[in-house]
């Protein structure tokens, strides 16, 4: 099937809002090249469970493409149209299974050495679509907070090596109140600027209480879905005839309630949490990976104004000789390794925050939990400086919030 063969009936399998949007845009969709359209449909097919920011972004793309005259439209799509695809790809059910199509497309582009051309085309498209409309004004600047190093008493690792050059490294942070102070600041921002999915708290262990205005997810709260998914994955893995494609389809089609995420709750959030476990690599096993990936996805998709991430110790990776030992030790945690993971995770979280609109005003705090060290980044703070002056954590966050 080719894009110009699309009809409204092609989208009968789509959820309600996705179907409506597709039918509304069908004239545009019919004009898009096959190397591009399924990637757009991959986003559209889950429209009903998209965050507001994602819906706005899709709307912007439709507006950008829809308002281009014939010539510029052709120019915008020419790089995609020039990619050589196969008949097999055309035959794929890319309307109803765009995710599977995009995996096959990706493999094809790599194998035929077209991945670089595709990559360049994608970057160019995103830049032009983003530039086509001004970024909406934010009610306030963004604030990211990363709490790292839970459970580490003594540390020899040089922390904040990547974040440090971006802001001020504080060495005398008086942390009375600790995490609660930071969550309180997040809650205050949520109250002052109520935006759906605009304020988040992600915890790598058991989460602390926050008002409902703050979207909260935690690794511990997802222990049942994690176990269910791991069991399913294991069964498929051990099957007599292993079919990777069927495995992918199984993961893509699993519903939140099947994984133990309660129905009747926040369907958008449930889908989001499920995606963290089915699409993330290592998120099912390591809590540090879970927090970093969840933060990345929350920033990319929900574009929150406030994001608090708290990394907790992950399980320790056993060495080969331990695995081979007759009597294995009980599962242990690895606080020191987790600190190193979290230090990098905090840097990635800052980088991802900087990818969002309003980056010139955004602020970020990374704090070594229960210790005196923190890095604060904000337009008002000098870069690459060190401060040995004692400062309260509450005062520090107040300067950033």
């Amino acid at each position: 099937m080719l894009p110009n063969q699309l009809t409204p009936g092609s989208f009968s399998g789509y959820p309600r809002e996705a179907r409506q949007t597709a039918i509304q845009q069908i004239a545009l969709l019919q004009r898009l090249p096959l190397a591009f359209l399924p990637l757009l449909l991959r986003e559209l097919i889950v429209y009903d469970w998209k965050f507001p920011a994602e819906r706005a972004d899709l709307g912007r793309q439709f507006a950008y493409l829809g308002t281009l005259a014939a010539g510029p439209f052709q120019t915008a799509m020419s790089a995609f149209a020039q990619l050589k695809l196969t008949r097999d790809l055309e035959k794929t059910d890319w309307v109803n299974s765009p995710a599977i199509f995009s995996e096959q497309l990706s493999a094809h582009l790599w194998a035929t050495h077209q991945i670089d051309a595709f990559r360049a085309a994608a970057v160019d498209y995103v830049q032009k679509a983003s530039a086509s409309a001004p970024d909406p004004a934010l009610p306030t600047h963004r604030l990211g907070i990363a709490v790292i190093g839970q459970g580490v008493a003594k540390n020899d690792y040089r922390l904040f090596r990547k974040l440090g050059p971006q802001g001020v490294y504080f060495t005398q942070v008086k942390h009375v109140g600790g995490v609660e102070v930071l969550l309180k600041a997040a809650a205050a921002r949520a109250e002052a600027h109520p935006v759906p999915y605009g304020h988040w708290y992600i915890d790598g262990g058991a989460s602390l209480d926050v008002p409902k205005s703050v979207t909260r997810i935690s690794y511990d709260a997802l222990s049942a879905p994690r176990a269910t998914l791991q069991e399913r994955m294991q069964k498929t893995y051990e099957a007599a005839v292993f079919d990777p494609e069927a495995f992918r389809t199984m993961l893509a089609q699993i519903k939140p309630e099947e994984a133990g995420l309660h129905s009747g709750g926040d369907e958008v959030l449930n889908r989001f949490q499920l995606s963290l476990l089915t699409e993330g690599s290592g998120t099912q096993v390591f809590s540090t990976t879970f927090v970093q990936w969840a933060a990345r996805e929350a920033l990319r998709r929900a574009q929150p104004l406030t994001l608090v991430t708290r990394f907790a110790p992950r399980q320790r990776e056993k060495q080969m000789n331990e695995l081979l030992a007759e009597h294995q030790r009980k599962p242990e945690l690895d606080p020191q390794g987790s600190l190193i993971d979290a230090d990098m995770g905090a840097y990635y979280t800052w980088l991802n925050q900087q990818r969002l609109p309003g980056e010139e005003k955004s602020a970020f705090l990374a704090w070594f939990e229960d210790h005196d060290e923190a890095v604060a980044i904000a337009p008002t703070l000098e870069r690459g400086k060190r401060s040995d002056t004692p400062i309260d954590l509450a005062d520090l966050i107040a300067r950033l919030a």
Partner: protein
Amino acid sequence: MKCATACRWGCDARRITRADAQEFLQTIKSLPIRLSDPVSYDGLFSMADRHGLTVYDAAYLDSAVREGLPLASLDNALCKAAGKAGHKKRWPAPLCSIIALKRLAYMHVSDLRGRKPHEISQAISLNRRNFLRTVTGAGSAAAFFGPAALRGMAASKNRKAVVVTFGGGARDDETFMPDGQENIPHLLKELVPQATFLTNVVNKGILGHYVATASIVTGVYETFNNFAAVSPNNPTVFEYYRKDLKRPATDAWVVAPSNGFARIGESGNKQYGPGLGAGVILPKRLLSAALSSASDGARYQHLLRDNYETPLYAPSLAGRQIELDQMAAVLKLSVDDFAAHARNLVSPDELSVYIARQLMRQISPSLLWITLHDIDIAHSGTFSLYVDGIKRTDRLCAELWQAIQKDPEYANKTTMFILPDFGRDSDIDSGGNGFQHHRTGDAVSRTTWMMALGPDVKQNVVVDRRVESTDLIPTLGAYFGFDARLSTGKPIAEVA
């Protein structure tokens, strides 16, 4: 001015094209370079006069002293002057190119705040090739042709080669860049000073570990499914070696991490193929077989996991017992001893190196290929475990080199090549998730390094021209005297 001058010299010497020069100068323009005036031009003149330096070079020294930064220079007079001026911070000559890159990288990262995503991307996607070549060109050329380049010992007629892929996928950031150097003390302090070090090795193929290794082994960018248990389409180095040089089957071996590499030793090419390849040992598979009779399989499941990249890959292969018997015969190692030894090792790569050393002791193959893979734990998203993998691989490479030097069958007649199969995604590319994967195909994930050590290889030399990972097999061809006729690569003259 200096950069433009270096470019002019590069053009005149035909080391670079004018288009390369223009591209590089454009890159320089896009960088947030901070200009720093000397405190006093009189002072600068005095410094130049005192140390017999040009005023330009005195300005470098003045800048390094005032900023408290290491001096990255291959200029003897300048380094000597730095010593006299009490400025001890200096990097070893072969690392100057890397350090220069570090300095530039720091400038990039330090000025990202408040930038738009594409600006960040543009700022960081430094044209590594041009930078390394132009900035280090003079230095490396001097090192290559000057007295610093120590000639190796005379070539032995009975040559051997050991190839180690520094697997699976390590970035410059965690190896030769400033923050990464603490992870590779053995490479930096022991091996690089004895090596010709190629800083700019590009892999233009598919960035999956099996298919990428197959591409290196064949010298052709293979295009099969990375997760399929298939033979490479093109003849492997082992087939060229054995057929052209009429070498026996026992003379070429591969030690590889997982079942996925079972067919790496022999291609499906009709002119070569069956009977002409290398023996392949998959230590984890052997271990699985050795333990399965007496142990709880589930207990070892994690250890025997085949691939870090995807849980979707589990090729099942038969013939375990036969392999175990063969192992016992070939390596003169009982199954019990093998299993007992494994219990004292911390990782599958240690097991691979143990097997490789056993091969060296028992049958001394002339062509030995070892694919390490611990680093690929990065796919789990745990930075500390990824770095642990790099540290372990660094140590294992040094141990292998030491073993080569101590073994009379190998000492003074063996060249060892070490190279990552490719890098991993950049922190900056929004399409990836930094070190975790190698999916974007960006420059960081495609560009890596290679070093060669041995009696025929010049020591303490940096080569910064671009080569490709497919060039290794023709290089081995030139070294051994076989014709890698179907390879698309070219021999690397500096190490061939």
